[in-house]
C-alpha cells in the first residue's frame, strides 16, 4: 500500500426502531457530529465524503444528492457506493482506498438506514439471480437464513436449544452496549418459545429493523499520527462478492466469508486467527448464522461451533469474544450495519468500548459485512503499525 491509513474518529447514533424527530439526512448528521467530535476535527478538515445506503430501503435513487448538504459537504469531493447488504462495508473500503490513494488527507465515510420509513423493503431483497425469481418467491433474509440454518442443523447435528443459546449470548452483549437497539433480557426458554417465522428461524433470531447511522473518519499515516492519539490502523480488507452467482437453492451454505478470511490472513501473515485476533465483529443477519461464521473465520472447526456455546466459551470475557457489541441481531440499520461493525471493532482496538470492552489488549480486531446471498467483506484493524 502506498499509504498506510488509520481510523481517527468513529461515531454512531443510538440505534432505535423509530426516529420521528429527524429525517434521514439529519440522522446521518448526528453520526457525523459524533465522529468529528471523536476525532476532534471539524467539517472544514474533511475533503472527501463517501456515502453508503441500501437504496431499496431508502425511497431514493441516489440519496447522496439530498443528504450531502445536510452534512455540510457542499463543495467537497465524494460519491455514493452501494452493494446490497455489504453497502456499508463497500463504503468503508472506498473511504480506505480514497485515504490510502494519497488523494485526500481526511476522508469521511457515512452510512445510514432509516428503516422505520421503509415498510417491506425486505420483500424484495435477496430474491435470486434475475427477474424470474424476484417477486415470484417471497425470498428475504428470513427465508434465506431459515434455509441456511436448516442445512446447518442437518450437517452439524445441533439442536434448537443451541440456536437459542447464541441469541441469548448476543442479547447479553447488547445489554452492555449503550448504542444497541434490542436489549431484551432473554433466556434460552424465551427464545425457544418465540414466534416461529420459518422453521427453525424465530422472530428473535432475526435482525430487527433499525433507524441508525454511523460514520468513520480515515486519514493517511502522517496525518493520522498528527491528529490522533489513538489511531486504529487499517491492516487489510477484502470485498469478496459473488454477484448472484449462486441461489440459495443451489447452495444453502453459499458464502465467501471463509475464502475472504483465508485471503486476508495470508496477506497479513496470520496463521492462528483465534490467537492473533482478539475481538470479532462479524455481521450475522440471523443469530443462527453466527455458528457458521465462527467456523468460516477459522475459530472453530467446520460444523462444531455450537459446541463452543454449549461449553459457554463465547462472550465478552470468554475465550472467543464474538460480537461483543451484541451484533446485528440487536441492531440492524441495513446499509449502515457493516460500518457499525467497523466502528465497534475500532472501539475495541482503542479500548474505548466501555461496558462491552473485551478485557486485555486488543491488538487486532476483525469486522465483516454481509449481503445478498453469501457476499462478505472482511476488515482487519490493528492497534500498532
Amino acid at each position, binding site marked *: 500500500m502506498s499509504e498506510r491509513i488509520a481510523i481517527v474518529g468513529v461515531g454512531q447514533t443510538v440505534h432505535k426502531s423509530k*426516529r420521528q424527530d*429527524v429525517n434521514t439526512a*439529519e440522522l446521518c448528521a448526528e453520526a*457525523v457530529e459524533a465522529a468529528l467530535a471523536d476525532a476532534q476535527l471539524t467539517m472544514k478538515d474533511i475533503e472527501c465524503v463517501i456515502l453508503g445506503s441500501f437504496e431499496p430501503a431508502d425511497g431514493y435513487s441516489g440519496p447522496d444528492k439530498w443528504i450531502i*448538504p*445536510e452534512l*455540510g459537504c457542499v463543495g467537497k469531493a465524494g460519491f455514493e457506493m452501494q452493494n446490497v447488504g455489504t453497502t456499508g462495508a463497500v463504503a468503508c473500503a472506498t473511504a480506505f482506498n480514497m485515504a490510502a490513494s494519497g488523494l485526500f488527507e481526511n476522508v469521511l465515510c457515512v452510512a445510514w438506514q432509516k428503516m422505520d420509513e421503509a415498510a417491506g423493503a425486505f*420483500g424484495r431483497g435477496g430474491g435470486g439471480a434475475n427477474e424470474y425469481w424476484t417477486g415470484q418467491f417471497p425470498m428475504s433474509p428470513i427465508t434465506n437464513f431459515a434455509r441456511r440454518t436448516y442445512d446447518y442443523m442437518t450437517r452439524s447435528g445441533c439442536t434448537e436449544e443451541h440456536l437459542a443459546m447464541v441469541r441469548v449470548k448476543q442479547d447479553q452483549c447488547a445489554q452492555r452496549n449503550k448504542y444497541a437497539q434490542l436489549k431484551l433480557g432473554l433466556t434460552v426458554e424465551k427464545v425457544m418459545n418465540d414466534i416461529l417465522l420459518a422453521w427453525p428461524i424465530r422472530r428473535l433470531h432475526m435482525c430487527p429493523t433499525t433507524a441508525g447511522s454511523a460514520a468513520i473518519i480515515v486519514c493517511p499515516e502522517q496525518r493520522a499520527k498528527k491528529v490522533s492519539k489513538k489511531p486504529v490502523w487499517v491492516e487489510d480488507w477484502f470485498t469478496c462478492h459473488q454477484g448472484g452467482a449462486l441461489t440459495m437453492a443451489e447452495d444453502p451454505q453459499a458464502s465467501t466469508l471463509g475464502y475472504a478470511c483465508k485471503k486476508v490472513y495470508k496477506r497479513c501473515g496470520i496463521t492462528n486467527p483465534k490467537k492473533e485476533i482478539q475481538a470479532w465483529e462479524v455481521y450475522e443477519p440471523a443469530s443462527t448464522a453466527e455458528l457458521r461464521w465462527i467456523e468460516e473465520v477459522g475459530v472453530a472447526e467446520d460444523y462444531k461451533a455450537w459446541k463452543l456455546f454449549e461449553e459457554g466459551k463465547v462472550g465478552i470475557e470468554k475465550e472467543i469474544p464474538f460480537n461483543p457489541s451484541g451484533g446485528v441481531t440487536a441492531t440492524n440499520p441495513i446499509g449502515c450495519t457493516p460500518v457499525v461493525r467497523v466502528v465497534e471493532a475500532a472501539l475495541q482496538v482503542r479500548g474505548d468500548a466501555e461496558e462491552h470492552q473485551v478485557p486485555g489488549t486488543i491488538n487486532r480486531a476483525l469486522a465483516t459485512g454481509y449481503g445478498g446471498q453469501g457476499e462478505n467483506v472482511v476488515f482487519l484493524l490493528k492497534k500498532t503499525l
Partner: protein
Amino acid sequence: MTHHIKKSVADIPNDPLVVEVQAYSNFTVTVGNTGNKFLTEIRDNKQVMGIKCPTCKKIYVPPRTHCPTCFARMSEWVKLSGKGTLETFTVVRYQEPYMPKEPPYAYGVIKLDGADTGIVHMIGGVDLSKIKVGMKMEPVFKEQREGSILDIEYFKPSA
C-alpha cells in the same frame, strides 16, 4: 432418476421476449423536527419561515438542520413574508405519473424576500406565456392544509 430421457430443446423458440414487472414499495417519509416546524407554520398560520446559520448568517428556505456549507447546527427561525422575486422558471410540457397536475404548468425558483435562498414551487394565476423573470411573487395557500409543501398551492405574481 433413471427414467429421465433427455428431450431435445430444438423445438423451443428463441425469439426475444420483454416481460413487464411491477415493483411496489411503501414508504413513510419522516420530515424531522426542523421540517415539522416549517410545515406546521405553513399549515396553521400560513407563515413561511426561514432558518438562519449562526456562522454564515445565511437564511435558508426550505430549512435544513445543518448549514450545507459549514455544518453548523441551525436553530434560529426567521419569519418571512413569503413574497419574493422570480429568479427563473420553466414550463413543463411532458407528462409523468408523479406530477402534481396536468401539464402544461410552470415551476419557478422564487427568491424570498429576507432569505438568502429561493424556493422551488409551481407558478399559477398567470398565463404561462406571460411569466417573466424578475416578477414579484406571492404564495397562494390551499384552503385545506395538511402540513405539506403543497399547502402552498402555487406562487402567483403579486398584484
